[in-house]
């Protein structure tokens, strides 16, 4: 996922969007993984699940953690050369993506269907375009 975001970061910047990747962990994990996989991204960590829970991201259920889709997406990522991840904290936490506007309000929210489900860069950019049209910013 980090590699995907890194690949899209130039387009995000061109669209005047900041991309922030958040994970559970410590600065040493951030340096090790984000530093090598996504050097242009702003990666931030928290040692607890509190930010996830506050954004409405809960622990995944069994079907969201270990479904055929999760296995297939994991295999696809491995075939594309993505290596193992740094796992810290509660690996059951579900991912999610949000666009926050300058006033600090949620402009778009994507709650992943399972732990391997992430919006593509194109979907994020399209959402940002729609937000701009809606808010005329």
């Amino acid at each position, binding site marked *: 996922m980090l590699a995907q975001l890194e690949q899209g970061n130039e387009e995000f910047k061109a669209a005047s*969007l*900041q991309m922030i*990747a958040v*994970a559970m962990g410590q600065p040493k994990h951030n340096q090790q993984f984000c*530093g090598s996989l996504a050097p242009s991204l702003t*990666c931030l960590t928290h040692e607890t699940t509190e930010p996830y829970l506050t954004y*409405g991201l809960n622990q995944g259920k069994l079907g969201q953690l270990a479904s055929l889709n999760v296995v297939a997406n994991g295999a696809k990522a491995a075939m594309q050369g993505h290596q193992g*991840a740094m796992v*810290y904290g509660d690996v059951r936490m579900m991912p999610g993506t949000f666009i926050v506007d300058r006033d600090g309000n*949620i402009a778009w929210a994507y709650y992943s269907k399972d732990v391997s489900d992430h919006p593509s860069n194109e979907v994020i950019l399209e959402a940002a375009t729609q937000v701009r049209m809606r808010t005329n910013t």
Partner: protein
Amino acid sequence: MQLSVGMPAPDFTLTDKSGQSVVLSSLWQQGPTIVTFLRHFG
């Protein structure tokens, strides 16, 4: 509770690669920000 469009985004103090504290609101005040929560780095 899931967040809906228009709701205030919860603010948090997180930590960057060098161990410095970063307040999320200081980032989105600069412009629209995509905040993506990952299950892990990788």
